[in-house]
């Protein structure tokens, strides 16, 4: 059953089928094969026809040749948590604008969240997203469906039919299912269909009214805090439910050292548990909020630098499986408010890779580990065949310069909303070219 094919960009078949393109003189980095070596790659008919060190200088006859000048050729990134505004909040972001932002950031597959208006909780709406993406998006788009009707956390959705319609996983958006019985039933029922249950972990009662991480800085700023235990408590509950039901569970974005301990313990017990972390929680901390900067107001809130460092260690150890952008476009008007009243969320598709490369440049993580959490790991989690530079795989490829310095200017972002916490930040590393199914969908023009 190839349920998700309709959202996948098909390799071009017509006139281009005769031509092939060789990317020579590249540094091939493919975490799926643990490969980091000089070499090249040939794209034909939208697929990777060949890859390896033998293609460093020599290409087959009759192909277009692109000299990569020693830059990194890697699988396109897979971002498992992207909020858009389509349907319902198109002024924030559409599938089209999100896909252009993704392409510019080297992201070739995005998974969009069901937190729209209407909520993606019915088969017809999954179909709507797939058709809109097919017609308007320039990268692969998959959709998560809601796990409860209207994301209300009360009644489970038609998990079987939604999965059959192409929903890649099930989420309750930015709210946790507080009712333990409902969550247990979702995990239990979802297990029958092999459904991946992705959960935002935050006890809604404990976290309510919190504007930022609870601690010294919140106290100084006079802001209500959300204690990180609200995340860990929900996560611990969920792990118990996984133990009871054996449902496939993924904690969407953890943010604290204690949560990491819970994940590590769950994995040690061989439970079907995985987790993700947002790029923000790997590269920013609560100090960045400074004088009430609302572009740093996100959910879960930015934590202490000790927690951030723990996230990086968790990634290095493989306890954290994937990195997501948690791209969440918000109106400027909704952000330009007193901190506690401003909406949560930060865009992140276009800065995902350069921000992640900070961890590489700072020596905190090897390049391979950074890319693994952005390519093959999310591919495995979601059951996608992309995220690797294998012969015969779909040619979702990025070419990037890991060192080129640049400064983020929010007005240059392709996303329809400009709420980037990295605005005016110095970055090192930039995407030069993005291919989706062999087609160049983005090319950097200096």
């Amino acid at each position, binding site marked *: 059953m190839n349920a998700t094919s309709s959202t996948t960009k098909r390799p071009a078949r017509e006139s281009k089928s005769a031509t092939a393109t060789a990317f020579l003189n590249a540094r091939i980095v493919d975490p799926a094969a643990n490969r980091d070596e000089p070499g090249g790659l040939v794209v034909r008919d939208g697929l990777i026809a060949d890859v390896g060190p033998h293609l460093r200088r020599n290409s087959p006859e009759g192909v277009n040749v692109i000299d990569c000048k020693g830059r990194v050729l890697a699988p396109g990134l897979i971002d498992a948590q992207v909020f858009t505004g389509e349907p319902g909040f198109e002024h924030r972001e559409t599938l089209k604008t999100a896909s252009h932002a993704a392409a510019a950031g080297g992201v070739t597959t995005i998974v969009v969240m069901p937190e729209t208006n209407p909520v993606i909780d019915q088969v017809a709406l999954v179909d709507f997203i797939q058709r809109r993406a097919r017609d308007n998006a320039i990268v692969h788009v998959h959709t998560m469906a809601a796990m409860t*009707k209207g994301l209300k956390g009360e009644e489970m959705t038609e998990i079987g039919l939604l999965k059959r319609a192409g929903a890649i996983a099930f989420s309750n958006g930015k709210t946790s299912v507080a009712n333990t019985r409902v969550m247990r039933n979702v995990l239990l*029922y979802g297990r029958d269909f092999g459904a991946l249950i992705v959960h935002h972990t935050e006890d809604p009662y404990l976290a309510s009214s919190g504007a930022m991480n609870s601690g010294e800085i919140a106290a100084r700023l006079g802001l209500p805090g959300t204690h990180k235990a609200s995340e860990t408590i929900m996560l611990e509950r969920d792990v118990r439910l996984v133990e009871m039901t054996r449902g496939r569970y993924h904690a969407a974005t953890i943010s604290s050292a204690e949560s990491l301990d819970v994940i590590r313990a769950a994995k040690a017990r061989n439970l079907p548990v995985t987790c993700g972390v947002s790029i923000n929680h790997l590269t920013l901390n609560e100090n960045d909020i400074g004088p009430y900067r609302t572009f740093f107001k996100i959910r879960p809130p930015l934590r202490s630098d000790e927690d951030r460092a723990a996230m990086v260690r968790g990634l290095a150890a493989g306890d954290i499986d994937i990195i997501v952008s948690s791209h969440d476009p918000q109106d400027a008007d909704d952000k330009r408010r007193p901190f506690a009243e401003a909406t949560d969320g930060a865009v992140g598709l276009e800065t995902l890779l350069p921000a992640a490369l900070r961890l590489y440049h700072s020596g905190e993580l090897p390049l391979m580990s950074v890319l693994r959490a952005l390519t093959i790991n999310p591919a495995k989690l979601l059951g996608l065949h992309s995220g690797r530079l294998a012969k015969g795989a779909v040619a979702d490829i990025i070419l990037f310069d890991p060192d080129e310095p640049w400064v983020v200017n929010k007005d240059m972002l392709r996303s329809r909303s400009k709420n980037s916490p990295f605005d005016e930040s110095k970055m090192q590393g930039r995407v030069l070219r993005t291919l989706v199914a062999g087609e160049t969908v983005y090319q950097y023009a200096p």
Partner: protein
Amino acid sequence: MTNAVAKVEPLHFPHRHLLTVEGLGAQEINFLLDLADSNADANRQVGNRRDVLRGRMLINLFFENSTRTQASFEMAAKRLGADVMNMNVSTSSVSKGETLIDTAVTLNAMRPDMIVVRHHSAGAVELLAQKVDCSVINAGDGSHQHPTQALLDALTIRRAKGRVGGLTVAICGDILHSRVARSNIMLLNALGARVRIAAPSTLLPPAPERMGAEVFTDMWKAVEGADVVMMLRLQRERMEGSYVPSTREYFHFFGLDHEKLARAKPDAIVMHPGPMNRGVEIASTVADHSSSVIREQVEMGVAVRMAVLEALARNLAKR
């Protein structure tokens, strides 16, 4: 039927009550089924009223609404010449706050011969049976037992297939809350059938494999090669997001339609204890199809209940 072998079956049913099928042996079960089988034939004749229960008083005590089971017991009792009194919760003192035990003691003081009880709580019928001197027949207690349903299902299968032992019976639907499923799994096992159960995990009890059935969460696989497909009723309040997301999804994955039925043996029969939710657990066209024995089940219900009443009455003290 040959008469070459001397029958070792009991000539009576040595119990005062029928509260559960648990512990009943194949001989006892077959004794009841044989009796019921002849009742079924007799019931088709004109003038089928007998008088083995003449002078006996039977109370139908229903704490949970039921039209068909109550009517079935009433007809069975009347065909055997008994007097029947129907007591309904809504019109009884129970709704005025009387406890179950007080009700039992009160009724017992009126010296009935048999009480047929349905109650919404598992174990309630057994509790009542401890407090009375007459025979008690369980007509369904919560999610626990419904012995006469299992007996009538076995008789229906036996008449359609000639036997029960060795057949593959797939019981599909809300196993978790079903007294019909629990009774049938036990009774069919006692008769040597191979029992399968199929339900979404949310409608399976914990450790379902311990119940003596092969467990499936994929109904297509459960009905594969089955001789009998037995559907269960899904309560309306369990359809909308609590145990299953919707009637549409339930029907898609667990409703018996012709596609799923085609996986069963070509001569498979379709059963349902009723009342049916057409389009939820069973397609209308399947329910009305020639393979359906749902109406026969109702007919066998009277025959089986007559057999049970007669068998128990033989053990009652003569007045």
